[in-house]
């Protein structure tokens, strides 16, 4: 077994294990932490695919942003130590059978699909980031200026929205 293969299996197994733990653990706080591990393992997979930039973003935004956000919200809603109710057997069975069926179906699709590769050079990672930056602000084909600007508006809106909703107004202001 090659090293890269080994690492792939290793990280994948870890990721899936943590993933399963994330959705099965009884404690919400632990669940968030397992999520953290899962995400880090995914970042590792990105590394293996030479997408270091994405791996970095994954770690920064997801692990550093979203998971922290989730953790904060846990504390805000006083859920940190709460033991969640275990789903009933019926729920587990039905949910798992639906999920397994779905998985089976999608896997069947993937196996039967014929992927036509368009071979080309995998860009070196140092070059990659520069290209990402250039493409991000390009107006032409394969330029992402529009999504870039749009997402900025979205983030502004999310900011405004979050403030409007979650901001606890003093009684007098209402």
């Amino acid at each position, binding site marked *: 077994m090659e090293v890269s293969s080994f690492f792939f299996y290793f990280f994948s197994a870890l990721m899936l294990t943590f993933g399963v733990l994330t959705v099965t653990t009884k404690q919400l706080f632990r669940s968030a932490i397992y999520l953290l591990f899962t995400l880090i393992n995914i970042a590792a997979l990105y590394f293996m695919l030479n997408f270091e930039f994405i791996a970095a973003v994954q770690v920064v935004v997801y692990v550093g942003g979203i998971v922290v956000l989730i953790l904060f919200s846990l504390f805000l809603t006083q859920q940190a130590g709460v033991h969640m109710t275990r789903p009933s057997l019926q729920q587990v069975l039905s949910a798992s059978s639906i999920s397994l069926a779905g998985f089976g179906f999608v896997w069947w*699709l993937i196996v039967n699909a014929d992927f036509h590769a368009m071979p080309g050079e995998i860009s070196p990672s140092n070059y990659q980031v520069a290209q990402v930056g250039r493409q991000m602000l390009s107006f032409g084909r394969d330029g992402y200026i529009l999504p870039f600007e749009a997402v900025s508006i979205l983030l502004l809106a999310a900011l405004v929205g979050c403030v409007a909703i979650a901001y606890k107004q003093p009684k007098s202001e209402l």
Partner: protein
Amino acid sequence: MDFSLTIWILILPLATFLITGLLGNKFPKKISGILGTLSIGVAALLALNIAYNYFFISGKIDEVYQTITPLKYSWLSFSPTLSIDMGIILDPISVMMLVVVTFVSFMVHLYSFSYMKDEPRYHIFFSFLSLFSFSMLGLVVASNIFQMYIFWELVGVSSFLLIGFYYDKPSAVAASKKAFIVTRFADLGFLIGILLLSFYSESLDFQTIIERLSSPDSSFLHSATAASFIGASAMTWALCLIFIGGAGKSAMFPLHIWLPDAMEGPTPVSALIHAATMVVAGVFLVARLFPLYHLIPTAQHLVMYVGAFSALFAAVIACTQTDIKRILAFSTMSQIGYMMFALGVSGYGGEEGLGYTASMFHLFTHAMFKALLFLGAGAVIHHVHSNELSAMGGMRKQMPVTNILFLLACLAISGVPPLSGFFSKEEILTAAFNGNKMIYGVGILTAGLTAFYMFRLYYSIFWNKPQEHHANGHHKEADASMLIALGVLGIGTVAAGFIPFTNYITSDGELFESEFHLNLAMIAVAAGLLGIAIATAFYLKKNSRSDKFAAATGGLLRYARNKFYIDEIYLFVTKKIIFNLLSAPAAWIDKNIVDRTMVLSGEVTSMVSDEIKTMQSGKVYDYVIYFFLGVIALSVLAVFY
């Protein structure tokens, strides 16, 4: 002579109907009476004039009376071949009927003028009488079988209106309903008969129908006799069905039940409609289509047997009734039976067609004496304010003129020479003798019974009891106008017999001289006299002979008195079968099955809606599960479709 003047005979009563009906309450009520009487009087004169012109001046060509159609308007055209034409047909029978109808109607108008004088709805009464006269006249001159049907229905409704004239009397309302419905039922036969005939002859015109269906080599007749349904040809069906219509109107067994009840109407109405004119419409109808009946023996036999049976049947019942008008009603039925079986036994053409002539002759004379009888009875009823024989008796002193005229009419109907009834009945019996011996026997028997019950009636009114009933005793004779009417009809009763009918009316228009058969006449007269004698013995003086006789006959008399329970059978059929077995279940089904299904479809929808509401459980994870299942289903469908 311009025969198109005939239209005025129809227009006059119609105009009177509209004027008195719509505006009658605007002017003094006498005016309505005068107007009605005058207009029908003028019409009667016109009719006489036309009859004179037709029979004696211009109606004959080569010794054969022609059929003249002076007027014809297309009224409603169904298709290029079939259309209802409103027209006037003049041939011997229609001209005779014109005279009979206008004449009797005129007399009845005259009579009613004073008879109804206390009635607040006087103008309505005259208006209805005019409507009836119009309809009846339209019926007799109809040139188109559908035109006849139209007026046939119109006389029906006028009869309905007049029977129910006293509409606040429940019995009158019931009687009018019964008359209308029973005749309507019979008319159904007429209608389908018309449809059948018109389909095969491709015409609705009387003359065309007869022309096309009576010539033996016509293709129309061939197809009409070739088509068959349940063992009888279309032609037979058509004629039998049309006869059902005629039988209904003419109160033949078993459709006679409405006639006795119809006596709930004012007496002049009974005289006009239910004795002299409308009830003979059935006879007239058969006579009108006689060339066709003659071709189809089955149909003609039906006419004959029904006529003969009704004659005897009604006579038996008449012997047991105690209501003066009902006796007369059954007598009418019996006499119409005579006319019917006369047609039934008749042949076609020349002397063979004696029965046909006799039937028309009897129709004519019967109109006279039966109208007289009714109007006389009306005078009596007017006097005693009751219809029951038990309330009468010994009135010969109080009402001498009525007494004599009534006696005259009774003699006429009993066939005593030389009154009119004798001649016509003699001709009928001769025809029956030539045609069918059994029918002849029935005729003789009926003649005897007729004489018996008529004199039973006569004695019970005018003799029987001493004059104690109305203690005030003074003359209470009818008013002048009533007496004039009675008198004129009396003259008619006496004189009508002497008209040589075979010179005017024959089955095919060719004239012949009738022979007088003394032997046959003797038998008939003897039967009549026997009947009178028995009646004299039973009823001249009050005695118990009749009761003993009644006891001797046992149950038969009870059956007869109850009119052989025919009414009850009808009641059973309508109430129990139609209402309870057809109508009630239909209504139940409509409400509980058909409508319920409609409502149920709505209820099921809302039930389903209630059942599936749990899908929308309010829990977001459930929504997502449905979403996911939907995705899977959608993609499976998409992939495997």
